[in-house]
């Protein structure tokens, strides 16, 4: 195996950029960018599994990331006994009714046929909906009025937040199964549109179902897997260490916290990368690529195209869900309003395309490069606008407008980068082997 100096050089260049930010701006900022870069890299690995391995277009990355985030809340926050007492049984009964309804509809769908089937499904659906609502509505009201300033939701399980990374992956996988079951096997743009739809609905639910996620009131103060800055600043051992290294104690503690996050995230990144590489180079990976490149031929060879697509779609979404849960862990809070399609769906796409679709290392590099410039584009854009408007009078309206709009430049920049890469180097920075 030859050593690929070009790729090593590109990762080296990326490391140099972090060093430059660390030396010129601050180490804390550099590490903060690094942490989000790692999470972005995992998300783009997930999308790469779907797009690069199998050619599936997922336009709902935002929704799967949000499902991961909600897992963070449900796993780690403390349960609220008063809310459970007020409406827990109602919620459970409502869910039971909903489950029975769905089971009855599924049964009717497979066991009946023709006009009776349509009639039965419609009737069961309507009746089941109203029965479930009759349990849900009073329970939801009761829960939301229980101490609504502090909680107003059911709370979570009070388990360690790192468990939510797995749970988040499972949630995302479940949603992916549902979407995939419906829209795979049809034209490829139907999957794109269906994922777009489900992601909008997931985020709308998170904003409105206050009993579950507190909605737009947000959940903050999620427990951390790493120590708190204040605790560290109190310990004498730590004080001595900061003094020895010649750092300010506040900055040193923040660096240590971010570094511990970075270590945890790197472990996840390496695990996902190892598994993805193993899968890609296995017979399974070769079969996936064969299906991607020629579905008809693969089907003629006896491969279950729809089944494989469903499998790979679920796996990719699960990885995105894991990354979403990690993001919530890093933020320490869950803010449904922060899930914007441009930030979560399209930016990840730019990462995958720029990095190199079909190549895991490419997806990681893409995640790092794109996130780095997404963050640093704001100061650069501002500087650029300042430069081209420096000839204008200080009170000029155009100058003020241009300076104010500099932030929107990065959307445009990302669009242009995506189009240019897609057209001129469709293989990306690190091409598929």
């Amino acid at each position: 195996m030859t050593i690929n100096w070009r790729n090593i050089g590109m990762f080296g260049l990326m490391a140099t950029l972090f060093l430059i930010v660390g030396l010129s701006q601050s180490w804390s900022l550099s590490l903060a960018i690094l942490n989000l870069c790692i999470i972005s890299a995992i998300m783009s690995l997930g999308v790469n599994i779907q797009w690069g391995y199998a050619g599936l277009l997922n336009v709902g990355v935002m929704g799967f990331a949000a499902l991961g985030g909600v897992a963070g809340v449900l796993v780690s926050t403390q349960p609220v006994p008063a809310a459970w007492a007020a409406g827990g049984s109602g919620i459970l009964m409502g869910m039971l009714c909903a489950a029975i309804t769905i089971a009855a509809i599924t049964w009717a769908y497979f066991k009946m046929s023709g006009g009776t089937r349509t009639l039965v499904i419609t009737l069961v659906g309507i009746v089941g909906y109203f029965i479930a609502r009759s349990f849900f509505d009073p329970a939801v009201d009761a829960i939301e009025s229980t101490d609504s300033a502090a909680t107003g939701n059911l709370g979570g399980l009070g388990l360690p937040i790192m468990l939510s990374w797995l749970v988040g992956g499972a949630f995302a996988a479940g949603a992916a199964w549902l979407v995939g079951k419906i829209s795979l096997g049809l034209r490829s743009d139907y999957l794109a549109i269906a994922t777009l739809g489900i992601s909008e609905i997931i985020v709308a639910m998170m904003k409105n179902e206050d009993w579950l996620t507190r909605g737009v009131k947000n959940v903050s103060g999620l427990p951390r897997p790493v120590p708190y800055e204040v605790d560290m600043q109190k310990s004498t051992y730590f004080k001595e260490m900061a003094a020895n290294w010649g750092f300010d104690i506040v900055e040193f503690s923040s660096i240590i916290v971010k570094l511990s996050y970075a270590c945890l995230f790197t472990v996840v990144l390496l695990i996902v990368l190892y598994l993805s590489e193993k899968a890609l180079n296995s017979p399974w990976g070769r079969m996936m690529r064969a299906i991607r490149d020629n579905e008809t031929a693969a089907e003629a060879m006896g491969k279950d195209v729809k089944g494989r697509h469903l499998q790979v779609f679920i796996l990719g979404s699960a990885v995105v869900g894991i990354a979403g849960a990690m993001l919530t862990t890093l933020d320490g809070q869950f803010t449904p309003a922060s899930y914007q399609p441009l930030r979560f769906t399209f930016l990840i796409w730019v990462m995958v395309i720029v990095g190199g679709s079909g190549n895991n290392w490419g997806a990681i590099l893409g995640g790092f490069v794109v996130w780095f410039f997404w963050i640093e584009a704001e100061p650069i854009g501002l500087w650029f606008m300042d430069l081209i408007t420096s000839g204008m009078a200080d009170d000029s309206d155009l100058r003020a407008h241009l300076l104010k709009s500099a932030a929107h430049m990065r959307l445009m920049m990302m669009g242009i980068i995506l189009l240019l890469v897609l057209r001129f180097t469709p293989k990306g920075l690190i091409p598929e082997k």
Partner: protein
Amino acid sequence: MTDFLNAVVILLNFLVIPGLAYGSQLALGALGVTLIYGILRFSNFAHGETMAFGTMFTILTTWFLQSNGISLGPIPTALLAMPIGILAAILLVLGTDRLVYKFYRKQKSTLVIYLIASLGVMFLYNGLIRFIIGPDDRIFTDGSRFLITAREFKEMTGLDQGLAFKMTQGITIGVTVICVAALFWFLTKTRTGKSMRAYSDNEDLALLSGINPDRVVMIAWILTAVLATIAGTLYGLDKSFKPFTYLQILLPIFAAAIVGGLGSPIGAIAGGFVIAFSEVAVTFAYKRVIGYLVPESWAPEGLVQLLSTDYKFAVSFAILVIVLLVRPTGIFRGQTI
């Protein structure tokens, strides 16, 4: 009897008229998606942003006209400004086609490549729009607000419930009827329209019979830009202009196009109204209607609302899912114009 009429008036006022107006806006939007699908054979994710772009230029022109004291009296000035918006949108989409899509047509790229390119275009337009007009809410309606106000209606009929018919709703419905009639006349009666249908039906045969593909594609983009700007402006007049809402309206528009049958213009119109009416009907609170129809003691306590308005996207999505499960080709079997 009056109770029954009052109930009907409430339904008309809050369900039928808003449904018609919203359905018209969706239908115009879905027609644009369907035209591009029929000719270029991909789902254009940048369509919502095309609508927003045309609307933005309409708004800028409206402001210019307003500051010069030009208006149409009771009718919104935006209608006068619309041709400029349409022109801007046409230039934009033709420029995009030349710089982006033309290359992939030559390459005979696969569908997903087009989709990703259209995502990139969407990103680009989005930035452009936010850069020029900003992300905030803009209201640009002027002229008189109502064709019939609730009070006039009450005096006219003597009923308890008023029927308010907003100017913007009337204009939306009127303009849509004109646009749809013109489009169908163009597609079925003119030579160019027929060549477009032929191209959409069977590309190879159309090429053999000497139809110029570049011309067909160009006209498809022009028509799309016209429809998108009109749809966007009407939507903006009826609600308000906010770049973000044009990103969200993409889902109901796609749903409308697919429900009707992607590629079928009649389907797009039917789909638009199916989606709009289901959305309004499912999120409508029936409390007052039932209150008029049943004896007082039976009147419901809750709002009798099937789904909160925050979930209107879920309605388009649910219909989309049902269509994909039961009849993936849509109501009118799509694929051709």
